């Protein structure tokens, strides 16, 4: 049995598709950067100061800490108006900046004892009356954990959502070449198929696989939130990954074996004969995973 290498166009096609798709996936990612320093009232640089950056247009916020030299960098920001604040040991600083797309803006914060803009947890809403007898949030018996802002957790949630949005978009995009792969399989596996039919099928399969694993990466790497148990349809979505995940690994391997056998003029045999059934189960599980989070049941 001799391995016949696919035409030179095949690797080139995969490379071109990857090169085209990758920039498109990141084209919409925010790319402005905010840098600066945090200094004490006496002018000394403050290390490990928490710096919060809030987009005043969207409300999106992120946090970071200054390094040992009192510097901070917040990359991947969308253009817009921002409120930048820093705090350490009861000292605060707040500044507003406008970020342009692709720009790097510097803002230097000097900490003072002035009070920081308060969050609702510390600053109750404007009272509808001036009565001194009105109830306050502290009267209601909530624990500090329930009422205090957790900026770090918000940043983690923001990161999680960003990654899962990419996962979702890539998952949807993956469906297109996956369907095309299934359609072209009809012409790739028969007795009278051409090398071109098989190559087209393989290229589409490779693109699907590439997109699938990129999508899976964003789901797997999305941070989990402490104290959250998985409930509802998302459990089905996650469980189905145990079917289409291994299937997406196995299908191309079996496909390569089948491709080799067909190119040698042989009938697809042995373990390679499982390529079709494995692919169908994999595609079915993938489709069910999409539906599990799309339709209510």
């Amino acid at each position, binding site marked *: 049995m001799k391995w016949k290498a696919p035409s030179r166009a095949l690797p080139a096609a995969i490379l071109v598709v990857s090169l085209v798709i990758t920039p498109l996936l990141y084209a919409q990612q925010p790319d402005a950067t905010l840098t600066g320093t945090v200094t004490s009232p006496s002018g000394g640089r403050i290390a490990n100061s928490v710096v919060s950056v809030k987009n005043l247009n969207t409300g999106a916020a992120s946090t970071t800490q200054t390094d040992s030299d009192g510097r901070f960098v917040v990359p991947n920001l969308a253009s817009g108006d921002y409120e930048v604040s820093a705090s350490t040991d009861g000292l605060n600083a707040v500044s507003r900046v406008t970020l342009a797309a692709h720009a790097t803006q510097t803002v230097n914060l000097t900490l003072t004892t002035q009070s920081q803009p308060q969050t609702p947890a510390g600053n109750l809403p404007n009272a*509808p009356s001036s009565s001194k007898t009105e*109830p306050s949030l502290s009267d209601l018996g909530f624990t500090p954990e329930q*009422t205090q802002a957790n900026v770090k957790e918000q940043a983690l949630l*923001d990161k999680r959502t960003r990654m899962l949005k990419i996962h979702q978009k890539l998952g949807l995009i993956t469906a297109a070449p996956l369907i095309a792969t299934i359609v072209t399989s009809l012409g790739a596996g028969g007795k009278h198929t051409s090398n071109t039919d098989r190559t087209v099928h393989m290229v589409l399969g490779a693109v699907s696989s590439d997109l699938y694993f990129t999508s899976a990466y964003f789901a797997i790497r999305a941070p989990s939130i402490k104290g959250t148990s998985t409930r509802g349809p998302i459990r089905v979505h996650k469980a189905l990954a145990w079917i289409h995940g291994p299937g997406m690994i196995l299908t191309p391997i079996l496909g390569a074996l089948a491709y080799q056998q067909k190119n040698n003029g042989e009938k697809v045999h042995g373990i390679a004969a499982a390529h079709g059934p494995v692919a169908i189960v994999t595609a079915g599980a993938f489709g069910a995973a999409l539906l599990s989070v799309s339709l209510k049941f």
Partner: protein
Amino acid sequence: MNKPKLIALLPFVLCTLALAADTQWVLQQCTLTYHVSHPLHQTDGISHAARGKGICHAGQCDFLIAVPVKSFDSGDSNRDLHMVQVTRGAEFPMVTVRTRLLESAGNDASIQADLEIQFAGQTAHYQHVPFQLTKQGADVRLSGTIPATLTDFKIEPPTLLTLPVKNEIPVRIEMTWHPTQ
């Protein structure tokens, strides 16, 4: 002042003292339900974790109801986490509702309340929100719907399969208040 005159004045004195005293109300039971519409989904998120207090003074009552954002359960943990994220629920963990009513409103079958709601770091005001009142012994049961929208709180509409949810997120409130004084 002789004894008969003092006895005659006693009811008036008692009534005056009673009116001057503050009456307090405690939220005994509360169910808050937000409704989100999406072309593929209709979702309700429910919380029973609200707490509230009302203080009446000089014929007027100030009420405060607060509920943790994280306490809403839509039946899907992924959706709930996403809800907390888009509403900035870790940064602004409480939803607070304030209103001022006339003390006599407790005797009506329905009221229209002006609400001040703080949520997701924003404050929104809703005028003349209708509530139905039912007396259950000393307790008062109120139910109504706040016509909230995402734009009221500058919340970016969450998307599913790239389709955004509707801007309207009506919040149904059912609560029972119990007088404590």
